[in-house]
């Protein structure tokens, strides 16, 4: 039997290469795309899942509900909470703090940056991390200890055998020699720690920083390992009381949060399992991913497979009629229905197996591509593929084989042999074929519309007006500390670089690390209005550097002494000039920017008079709403900045050359601190890259879906062309012209495509409206997206069937009438 099946398939490949080719490659494409996207989905769902005891691991998140802003959950919490948490919750088995910080190594004045963090010795125990060398419990116990990843060790020393070696580590401009006390074993499963290259213990000086002693300040994440997975719920339930017990304090206590801390502040435990998706909605989380998007990608994979299967079914039923005569003759010669069923099923299975092998090969090609598109460490996991592939092959083989096998094996030989025409399954089968093509194109067009919208939105985010002039702007690293003289020298050095038009400091910059926020009160005519404002302090020339748009009033002026921010000792006695952004103006309830001018707002500590209003400036993700902001002016006459970020507007010099010059100028002032002048796009890239990557996946899916749908349409057109030669002969005999025939056939072939487009548009509209709602700045959903997709699909469909159509329309009537 197997030999008969093999022979039959080989002969079909020889006799109908087009049909077998379409069938096999269509299926292979579907299987390849499905496997690849399944691996991607599995990767995202499996994120963090392989951490030992992951169900007992949590991150302590903070929820702020501040006046004038929407409440939000923030990844991370004050380290100050840790000792109280340990006291109050016996459920905590162990805990570790982690502050992501930019450590670099220095060799002969050259800095090498590493993905790095400061943490506690308990870190390895919390996460159950294995060390290739060194003892987990002792590795970070000594203050100069240093744990490297395998990759970092090889990068630094060319080997992993580096225990006891000395590494000069630079942190915020201070270089300290560390000794390697551990090497992290390479991880094969994805989690949020996969990227870490270097870990060092906190320094004793860290313990006095505000995030270690004050409730309202945070600089990193707090991870807990609980005793039982169920403890998460019970600890969470008692967290409000915990906050009231420990964070309350008199208003004069700078480390406490007032008499009712629970009104603005909350702590909650975020389980690490599933954090990948949860973090999408958490502010300042590592790299959250939208679960809906991942599910959509998974669905896209399933649809690609379904499309391919539909193709196989379609082609198989369409071609079944061609073999009717073969069946009739076989039956006449004594073949039983069962034998024929097994034969046709076997053929379908064999085709599916060939497609499966090709699909796997395609998956091997696609996975590295998708990995580079998404930036994820995606690899072909044969554990998953080994389970999925046989299932898919059997399912596809069965799906594509069962109908033709049943129909074919059921033909009555006498009727088939006597009939002049080949059976086609009748109008029911024709409707089924049309429905399948409609479904295929419906799915393909939906995906294409989504792809267009996603790519348009991504493009829009990259190019949307951020409220300042992006080109010709380079931004440096934060300058650590508050050395007034050094800060002045830095600005002078930068301004002296040839090509620099203006240079200034700001405490904020695109993609800011440190943010200061305070609640300001305006005593308006209808009572006090409280708004939580993000604070920036800027130097002279800042306006020339960023070029924000002034909506009302004026910018700071060095000639007006009152514009300058008061020195720390005079903050309570003098009012400072301040500029608000448009969001802040509307939160305070001013009718227009001009109306805000001259008004006085304050925190109790600082009092500010509004001298100007600028348009909103976007330094953060386009998904987030712009924070209301207040800007102060510091002329560097008496008051230093804290960790200011230099920015430079330049002209007439290539960007990379300019960056090099600026880095050199920086090194002249601060030789011990790594500098990295980069463009706004590079700094903001992290905000867009996720959507961009997903846009690329959708493009891939759209191309695959269209390709499969076209294969289906082509196969169907080829089949219809073969079947309709006779009909066209009759029509021509009755006087139809070639053009009328072309119009008729195109209309018939395109009808399911047009119906598909009509179905796809509303579906895509609903899906994309929901997706766009997640962006603060977004494009409008215009008819253009739909028209382009529909026109594209119809054009591709026309191209697909045009050859067949012309061929058919040119057939000579007499010959066509003879054809059967």
């Amino acid at each position: 039997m197997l030999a008969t099946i093999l022979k039959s398939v080989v002969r079909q490949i020889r006799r109908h290469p087009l049909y077998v080719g379409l069938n096999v490659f269509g299926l292979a494409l579907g299987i390849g795309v499905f496997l690849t996207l399944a691996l991607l989905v599995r990767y995202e769902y499996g994120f963090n899942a392989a951490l030992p005891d992951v169900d007992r691991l949590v991150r302590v998140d903070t929820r702020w509900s501040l006046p004038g802003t929407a409440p939000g959950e923030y990844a991370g919490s004050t380290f100050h909470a840790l000792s109280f948490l340990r006291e109050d919750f016996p459920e905590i088995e162990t805990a570790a703090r982690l502050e992501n910080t930019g450590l670099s190594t220095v060799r002969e004045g050259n800095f090498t940056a590493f993905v790095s963090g400061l943490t506690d010795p308990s870190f390895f125990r919390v996460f159950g991390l294995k060390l290739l060398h060194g003892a987990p419990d002792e590795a970070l116990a000594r203050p100069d200890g240093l744990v490297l990843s395998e990759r970092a060790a090889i990068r630094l020393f060319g080997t992993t055998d580096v225990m006891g070696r000395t590494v000069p580590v630079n942190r915020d401009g201070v270089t300290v020699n560390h000794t390697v006390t551990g090497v992290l074993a390479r991880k094969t499963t994805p989690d949020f720690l996969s990227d870490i290259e270097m870990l060092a213990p906190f320094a004793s000086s860290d313990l006095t920083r505000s995030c270690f002693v004050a409730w309202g300040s945070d600089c990193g994440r707090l991870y807990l390992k609980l005793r039982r997975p169920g403890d998460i719920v019970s600890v969470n339930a008692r967290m409000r009381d915990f906050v009231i017990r420990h964070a309350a304090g008199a208003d004069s206590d700078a480390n406490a949060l007032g008499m009712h801390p629970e009104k603005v502040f909350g702590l909650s435990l975020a389980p690490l399992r599933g954090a990948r998706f949860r973090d999408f909605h958490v502010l300042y989380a590592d790299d959250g991913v939208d679960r809906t998007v991942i599910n959509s990608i998974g669905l896209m994979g399933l649809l690609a497979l379904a499309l391919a299967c539909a193709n196989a079914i379609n082609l198989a039923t369409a071609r079944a009629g061609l073999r009717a005569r073969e069946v009739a003759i076989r039956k006449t010669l004594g073949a039983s229905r069962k034998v024929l069923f097994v034969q046709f099923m076997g053929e379908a299975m064999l085709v599916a197996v060939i497609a499966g092998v090709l699909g796997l090969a395609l998956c091997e090609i696609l996975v590295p591509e998708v990995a580079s598109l998404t930036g994820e460490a995606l690899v072909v996991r044969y554990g998953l593929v080994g389970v999925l592939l046989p299932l898919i092959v059997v399912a596809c083989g069965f799906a594509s084989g069962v109908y033709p096998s049943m129909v074919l094996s059921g033909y009555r030989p006498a009727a088939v042999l006597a009939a002049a025409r080949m059976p086609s399954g009748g109008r029911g089968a024709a409707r089924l074929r049309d429905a399948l093509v409609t479904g295929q194109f419906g799915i393909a067009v939906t995906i294409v519309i989504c792809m267009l919208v996603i790519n348009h939105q991504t493009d829009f985010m990259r190019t949307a007006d951020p409220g300042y002039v992006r080109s010709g702007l380079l931004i440096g690293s934060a300058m650590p500390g508050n050395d007034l003289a050094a800060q002045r020298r830095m600005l002078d050095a930068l301004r002296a670089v040839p090509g620099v038009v203006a240079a200034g400091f700001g405490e904020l910059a695109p993609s800011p690390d440190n943010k200061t926020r305070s609640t300001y009160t305006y005593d308006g005519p209808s009572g006090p209005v409280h708004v939580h404002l993000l604070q920036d302090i800027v130097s002279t020339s800042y306006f020339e550097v960023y070029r924000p748009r002034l909506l009302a009033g004026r910018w700071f002026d060095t000639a007006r002494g009152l514009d300058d921010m008061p020195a720390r000792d005079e903050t309570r006695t003098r009012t400072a000039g301040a500029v608000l952004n448009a969001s802040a103006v509307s939160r305070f309830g001013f009718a227009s920017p001009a109306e805000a001018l001259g008004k006085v707002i304050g925190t109790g500590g600082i009092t500010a008079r509004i001298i100007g209003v600028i348009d909103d400036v976007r330094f953060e993700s386009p998904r987030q709403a712009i924070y209301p902001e207040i800007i102060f002016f510091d002329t560097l006459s008496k008051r230093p900045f804290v960790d200011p970020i230099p920015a430079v507007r330049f002209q007439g010099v290539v960007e990379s050359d300019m960056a090099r010059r600026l880095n050199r100028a920086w090194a002249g002032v601060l030789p011990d601190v790594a500098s990295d002048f980069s463009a706004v796009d590079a700094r903001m890239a992290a905000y867009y890259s996720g959507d961009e990557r997903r846009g690329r996946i959708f493009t891939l899916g759209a191309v695959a879906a269209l390709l499969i749908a076209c294969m289906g349409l082509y196969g169907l057109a080829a089949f219809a062309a073969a079947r309709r030669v006779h009909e066209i002969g009759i029509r021509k005999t009755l006087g139809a012209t070639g053009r009328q025939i072309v119009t008729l056939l195109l209309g018939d072939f395109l009808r399911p495509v047009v119906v598909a487009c009509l179905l796809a548009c509303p579906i895509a509209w609903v899906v994309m409206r929901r997706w766009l709602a997640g962006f603060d700045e977004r494009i409008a959903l215009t008819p253009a997206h739909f028209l382009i997709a529909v026109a594209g699909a119809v054009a591709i469909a026309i191209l697909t069937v045009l050859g067949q159509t012309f061929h058919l329309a040119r057939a000579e009537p007499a010959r066509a009438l003879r054809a059967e």
Partner: protein
Amino acid sequence: MLIDLSHIQRLYRSDEVETTALLDIHLGIEAGEFVAIMGPSGCGKSTLLNILGTIDRPTSGSYSFGGQELTELGEAALAAFRRENLGYVFQSFNLIDELTIEENIELALIYRRMPKAERRHRVAHAMDHVGIAHRARHYPSQLSGGQQQRAAIARAIVGEPRLILADEPTGNLDTENGAQVMDILQRLNDEGATIVMVTHSPSHADLAKRRVDMLDGQVVISVRNAI
């Protein structure tokens, strides 16, 4: 003279073989004639009919219809000629499976761009004429052979063509249905239609006004039946 064929030759060439289907045919047909063409299988009857119907082109020779030379016309002009002047009846009916009887008959008029109301009127009339009005909404596969052939005749006459070509119209029918079809054709001829019919049946050939016998691609006898 409605039709004048002279020196008509038709060769079929495949890769290495050349077959002569028609060899120097001369034939004239007057308007209102009912001509039966007879001859053994492969003698060229159907080829001659196809050439008369302009769905096949002669390799050489001249074909004049109502004084118009057809061999010089292009594809589109021939399509227009067929629309306006010809009606066909085939042995295997050649109805389109996907269309109802009514739609099949209407098809001949649709290509003439006739207004819908007039089309409907004519189709109804043609169906009445051959007695299948009660089957208008059925599909061909739901009809008997005789009924399908009557539908095919209705399609052939609905456009009131100057010439009806029938290729073994009774070949797939039993005696009774065959007789009915011949009745209809005779009636149409009596009403003035010019008919050329290929047939294997001597008795049906005798019902025509003239009989043309063919052999090996040539006309051997042309005799007028005594009716």
